[in-house]
C-alpha cells in the first residue's frame, strides 16, 4: 500500500528575536477630543491613554511591518532569506488582495517563503504565534516570521466616540524557530458569536452601490466588549497558564492586548497574578494598535528593564470577531 510521508520537526519552538515600529506622530488626547466632545481627563480616566502614536500619511502598514521585521531579524541573528514562512496579522491592509505577507517577504529577502495574512484583529499576534509554533514543531517550517501590523488611523472616524480615539499605528514582529527546550506553551483560543460588537461600519459593497456612502471605519459597543474582556478573558488566560503546566506564581510578565488600562488591571486581578509580575501598559503612550499591541508592550517592558530574555510571559489577544488567543511564552 502506498502511504503519504509526513514531516516531523523539532520537539520545541521559541521566540528568537523581537522588533517593533510605532507611528511617527504623537497624537495627544487634546488632539482627538474636539470632534467627540471629550477631554484629556475623560480619556485618561476611562482608558489610561495619554497619547497614541500614528503613522504619517505616506507610511503604509507594510512600511511599519518592514521596520519591525528588520529589527526582529537582527535580534534573532538570522538573514531574511532563512525565513521560510511569513505570517502577517492585520485588519488594516487596505487591499483585499494580494495579501500583505508576500510583499513583506519580498522586501525582506525571502521572496519564496510561504506567505499569508491572518485576520484575527487584536488577537492576531497570538494567533500567529500559535501557527508559527505548530509549523516549526511539525517540521513544515524552520523559521517563521510573525508580524502584527496596523495602520488603524486609515480606518478611524474623528467624530466616532466608540473606538476611533483609542487607536494608534504600529507593528511588532518576532522570528519563531527551533528550540532545545520548551518555550511556547499551548494556545488557548476560540471565538464568541458577537460580530456586531467590534466591526466595520458597513461593507465595501455598500460603498460600491451608493457612492454617497462614507468610507467604512471602525465602531464598537464599548460596554459589551469591556465586560467580555474584563470578565471572560481572565478565564482564558488562566487556562493558558494551566495548559503550560504552570501556576500564576511562575509567570514573570503579563502582556495582554492593549485595549484599555482598566481591562488590563481587572484581568490581572482576576487571574490572581502576584504583585511581582511585570504588566504591559504601553497603551498609555501608544494607544490601541490591535495586532501590534502585544509585541509593542513587550518591547516596552524590555526597554524599561522590567523583563529579561527567558522570562515567562502570559500573553492574550482579544477583539473583533469576537476572537481570542492566549499562551505562555519564554521572552526572546
Amino acid at each position, binding site marked *: 500500500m502506498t502511504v503519504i510521508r509526513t514531516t516531523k520537526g523539532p520537539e520545541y519552538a521559541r521566540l528568537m528575536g523581537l522588533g517593533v515600529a510605532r507611528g511617527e506622530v504623537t497624537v495627544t488626547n487634546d488632539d482627538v477630543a474636539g470632534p467627540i466632545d471629550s477631554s484629556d481627563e475623560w480619556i485618561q480616566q*476611562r482608558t489610561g491613554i495619554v497619547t497614541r502614536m500614528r503613522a504619517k500619511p505616506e507610511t503604509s502598514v507594510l512600511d511599519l511591518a518592514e521596520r519591525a521585521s528588520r529589527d526582529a531579524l537582527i535580534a534573532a541573528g538570522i538573514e531574511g532569506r532563512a525565513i521560510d514562512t511569513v505570517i502577517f496579522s492585520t485588519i488594516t491592509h487596505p487591499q483585499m488582495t494580494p495579501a500583505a505577507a508576500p510583499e513583506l517577504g519580498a522586501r525582506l529577502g525571502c521572496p519564496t517563503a510561504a506567505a499569508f495574512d491572518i485576520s484575527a484583529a487584536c488577537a492576531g499576534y497570538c494567533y500567529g504565534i500559535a501557527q508559527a509554533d505548530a509549523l516549526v514543531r511539525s517540521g513544515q517550517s524552520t523559521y517563521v516570521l510573525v508580524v502584527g501590523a496596523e495602520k488603524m488611523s486609515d480606518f478611524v472616524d474623528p467624530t466616532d466616540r466608540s473606538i476611533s480615539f483609542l487607536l494608534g499605528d504600529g507593528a511588532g514582529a518576532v522570528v519563531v524557530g527551533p528550540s532545545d527546550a520548551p518555550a511556547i506553551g499551548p494556545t488557548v483560543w476560540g471565538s464568541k458569536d458577537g460580530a456586531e460588537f467590534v466591526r466595520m461600519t458597513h461593507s465595501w459593497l455598500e460603498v460600491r452601490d451608493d457612492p454617497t456612502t462614507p468610507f467604512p471605519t471602525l465602531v464598537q459597543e464599548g460596554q459589551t466588549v*469591556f465586560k467580555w474582556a474584563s470578565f471572560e478573558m481572565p478565564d482564558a488566560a488562566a487556562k493558558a497558564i494551566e495548559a503550560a503546566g504552570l501556576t500564576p506564581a511562575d509567570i514573570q510578565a503579563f502582556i495582554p492586548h492593549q485595549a484599555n488600562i482598566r481591562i488590563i488591571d481587572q484581568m490581572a486581578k482576576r487571574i490572581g497574578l502576584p504583585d511581582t509580575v511585570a504588566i504591559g501598559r504601553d497603551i498609555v503612550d501608544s494607544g490601541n494598535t490591535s495586532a501590534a499591541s502585544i509585541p509593542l508592550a513587550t518591547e516596552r517592558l524590555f526597554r524599561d528593564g522590567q523583563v529579561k530574555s527567558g522570562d515567562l510571559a502570559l500573553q492574550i489577544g482579544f477583539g473583533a470577531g469576537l476572537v481570542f488567543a492566549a499562551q505562555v511564552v519564554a521572552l526572546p
Partner: protein
Amino acid sequence: MALSEKEVLAGLAEIVAEETGLDAAEVTGPKSFTDDLDIDSLSMMTIVTLAEEKFSVRIPDEDVKNLVTVADAVAYMTKAQS
C-alpha cells in the same frame, strides 16, 4: 438560602469598596452611585458583574440604568435572588 437586604448591602459595599477604594462604610442606602460615590459607567458595570457573581443573580443591561442609589441595587438583588 436567600440573603437579607442587610446582608446584600454588606456584600455590595465590599464590592464597591474594592472597585473604588472607598471605605465600605460610606456605601449606604441613600447614596447615588454616580453623584455621591463618583462611580463611572465602567466601574458600575464592573460592580454589577461582580454582584451578579456574588449573589448568583442576573441583572439585564436595561435594568442597570434604573439602579440609581445603593438602596435601588440592594432591593433589586435581594428580590432577584428568589
